[in-house]
C-alpha cells in the first residue's frame, strides 16, 4: 500500500506571534516556520507503517509558496520516499488564505495524479488556522471513509481495513474503516523521530515534483472555493486583566457578590 502524507508549513508552535497592523493575519515576516506538529505526527505514523512492512512507499505533499519546499525537505529527511509540491502563494491562514475546501480539492487532485494510495494521513488541524476540516472534506470529496483524531492506527484484514482509535470528547472510540481512507492524527499517536544526519544531507539534493492548481486541472474549482470563505479580521484576544488580592474573606465574598458570581 502507498501512503500520501499531507504536511503544512506553519508558524513554529513555540514562536511568539503578533497580529499585523492591518489585522488581516499574523505577522510571519520574521517568525520561525516549521512543519505543523500534527503533520509531523502523521508523517511519523506513515514511516512506521512502512517500517512495519505495511506500506511500500510514503509520498509527502504540501500546498504552499516556494518556501514550503523546506517542509518537504524535512519530510524527506525523516524518511519520505518522494515529495510533491503544489505551488500556491496563498497557503497559510488569515485573510486571503486558501480555505480548507480548496486545499482538500487540491489534495484530491494529487491523489488522482500520484495515486493509487491506500491511505491519506494528515494532521487533524494546522496550528495556524485550527480549522480541523481539510481531512474530513478530502474524504467527502473522494467518497472515502474517514477516521479522525487518531491516537492509534493499525492495518488489518490483509491490508484492506484500518482500525483506528479516536480521541473524542467522551473518551476513546475505536472504528474500523475499509481502505482507502483518510486518517487524521492527534497528539498522542506517536512522537516524531529526529531526522538523522545522512538523510538530512541527502534530502538537500533530492528532487521535488512541482505542480500547481493549473497543472492539476483544478484551478477554477480552487478559485471558486477561495471565494466561499472570507476572513474579515484577525485580532488578538483581549488582554488579561490583573487579579485583585482581597484582605480577608468578607471582602472576597462581597466582591463575588458585586460581580454577580454569588
Amino acid at each position, binding site marked *: 500500500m502507498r501512503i500520501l502524507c499531507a504536511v503544512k508549513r506553519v508558524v513554529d*508552535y*513555540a514562536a511568539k506571534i503578533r497580529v499585523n497592523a492591518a489585522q488581516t493575519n499574523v505577522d510571519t515576516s520574521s517568525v520561525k516556520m516549521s512543519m505543523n*506538529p*500534527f503533520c509531523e505526527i502523521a508523517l511519523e505514523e506513515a514511516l512506521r507503517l512502512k517500517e512495519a512492512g505495511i506500506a511500500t512507499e510514503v509520498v509527502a505533499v504540501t500546498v504552499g509558496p516556494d518556501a514550503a519546499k523546506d517542509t518537504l525537505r524535512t519530510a524527506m529527511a525523516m524518511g519520505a520516499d518522494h515529495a510533491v509540491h503544489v505551488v500556491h502563494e496563498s497557503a497559510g491562514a488569515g485573510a486571503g488564505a486558501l480555505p480548507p475546501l480548496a486545499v482538500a480539492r487540491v489534495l484530491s487532485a494529487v491523489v488522482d495524479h500520484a495515486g493509487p494510495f491506500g491511505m491519506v494521513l494528515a494532521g487533524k488541524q494546522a496550528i495556524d488556522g485550527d480549522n480541523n476540516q481539510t481531512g474530513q472534506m478530502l474524504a467527502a470529496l473522494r467518497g472515502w471513509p474517514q477516521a479522525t483524531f487518531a491516537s492509534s492506527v493499525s492495518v488489518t484484514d490483509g491490508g484492506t481495513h484500518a482500525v483506528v482509535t479516536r480521541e473524542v470528547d467522551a473518551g476513546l472510540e475505536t472504528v474500523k474503516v475499509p481502505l482507502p481512507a483518510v486518517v487524521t492524527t492527534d497528539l498522542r499517536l506517536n512522537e516524531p523521530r529526529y531526522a*538523522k*544526519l*545522512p538523510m538530512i544531507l541527502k534530502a538537500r539534493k533530492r528532487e521535488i515534483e512541482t505542480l500547481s492548481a493549473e497543472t492539476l486541472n483544478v484551478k477554477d474549482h480552487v478559485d471558486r472555493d477561495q471565494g466561499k470563505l472570507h476572513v474579515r479580521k484577525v485580532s488578538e484576544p483581549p488582554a488579561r486583566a490583573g487579579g485583585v488580592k482581597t484582605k480577608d474573606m468578607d471582602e472576597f465574598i462581597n466582591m463575588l457578590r458585586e460581580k454577580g458570581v454569588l
Partner: protein
Amino acid sequence: MAAAALLSVARQPSRTALFAFTRSLGTAPTPPRHSFDKISAQHISALKQIVGGDANCFTDATSLAAYNADWTGRYRGSSQLALRPPTPRAVADALKYCTQHGLAVVPQGGNTGLVGGGVPVYDEVVISTAALNAVESVDADSGCVVAGAGVVLQALDEELAKHNLMVPLDLGAKGSCHIGGNVSTNAGGLRYLRYGSLHGSVLGLEVALADGTLLDLLSTCRKDNTGYDLKQLFIGAEGTLGIVTRVALQAAPRPSSVQAAWIGIQTFEDVRRALRLARRHLGETLSAFEFVDRASLDVVLEGQHASMRLHDPLPDNPTPFHALVEVSGSNEAHDTEKLEHFLEAASEEGIAVDGTVASGGRQLAELWAIREGISEALARRGAPVYKYDVSIPLSCWYDIVTDMRARLSEAGYNDSSGVRVVGYGHMGDANMHLNISSLEVDDRIGNLIEPWVYEWVSSRGGSISAEHGLGQMKASAIGYSKHPEAVRLMAQIKDVLDPSGTLNPYKVLPSS
C-alpha cells in the same frame, strides 16, 4: 490553540527544592563572626523609616526564612532584619546607616547563586533589590536598556522582546535571578559564546557605596574612554564593593531564526575538531556549543519525570560524547544552509558519527531540556552532588573527568556503587561543569575530591570558579587561581570602598 498542549517539553528553569543536597566541602570552615554590632529595636525603627515603612521591612521568622537560606539549602544565616528599599537613594541611605552603626550587610537579588554569596553567614542585615524592579527605558536606536537592579532576568527579556531585542545572557535561573545580581556576579550562561561577558555588555551602573554615596556611573554611551572604568570593579565583585541599584545594558538584536543540531562524537579529540569546525563554518551565527558526555546524558534520561518525555536523540548510534550546537540569526534559510554545510563537513571529515537537526520548536526545546536538565537530574538521585564549575584549557579539558573517575574508582567508588562522575558544560568557553553524584552521604568522597580538584585545575592554569563566583563556598580558595600580589591589591581596593568591612563580609576574599 492546540499548540499549547505541545509545551509539555519546554525549557524548565531549575527548581529550588531539587538542589537541597548540593554542596561542596573541604574548603576552609566558616570564619568566626567578626565583631560587628548586633541589631537593636532602635536600629530596626530607624531603618524602617529609611526604607519607607512596614511594607519594606521584615523581622518575622517566616519572611526571614526565605532571605536567610540559599536555594541549594546548603547555606543558612540568622539575619534578624531584611529590607526591601523602594529606591536607589533608600538603598544608599540604609547602607550608610548600617556602616555608621557597625552593622554588617548582605546584598541579595534573586537568591539563585550557587556559592552562598547572597545569604547571611551570621546576622548580617539583608538588603534586597526586589523593589527596584522597573525597566526604565529602552532606546530603539542604540539597543540600550536601563533597568532597576531588581528586574528579573526573564521579565527584562520579555520587555526587550517587544522591541525585537534580547538580554545578552541566558541562564537556567532566569525566572528568578535579578539583573543586578547577574551583574554583581558577572553571570555567564548559555549564550556567553556569542554575546560575551557582562564586562562588555554593561554600559553603566549606579552603585550604592558603604558610605552612603550613590555613585552615578550610569552612562548609556557605547564607547566612553574617560578615566578609569570604575564600573568594571563592581561587575563580578559579588556585592562586596557596593550594591548595584541600576543597570544600563547593551541589549542584542533578537534573532528571528534559532536552530540547533545535536552531534554524536566518538573521541574527545574529535569534539575539539568539531568546535574548531563550528567556529569556522558558523562564525557569527554560532550562539552556543555545549558539551554533554554519555554519563550526563544517561543521568538526564534516567532521572527525568514521566512528564518530561526526553529521549536520546541518536539511539541507534550511541557515542561517548555529544555536542549541542546552536546557531541564531536573522535569516532562517541562510542559517539552515550554514548549519547543514557545517554538518556535511563534520560528517565527511569523520568528526560526527551521527547527528540530527531540530525540526522545529518542539525538538529544539527537547535538545535544550536535555542539556539544561542535567543539574536537576543529578540532584534527584538523592544524595549530595559535588559541583565544580571550572575553566580548563581545551587541550586537557576532559582529562579532569577521566582523572576524577580513575581516582574515585581506585578508592572503590564507581558506577556499581552508584557514584557517577559526569562532565558537561560550555565547551565553547572552555568552562567545564564537573559533577560527582553519589546515592548516599559519604564524607570520604568529598575528601577524595577536594582539594585534589582545585590543585588539578590550578596546575593547568585554569580557574577554580569559571562563572559561579567565590561567595562563601570558595572564599579561601582564591589562591588556586590568583597570585598573592593580586589578592593583596584586591584587599586594598576593598579597604578603600568598605573600610569598616561591613559590606557582605566572609565572602569572596579570604577572611584575614
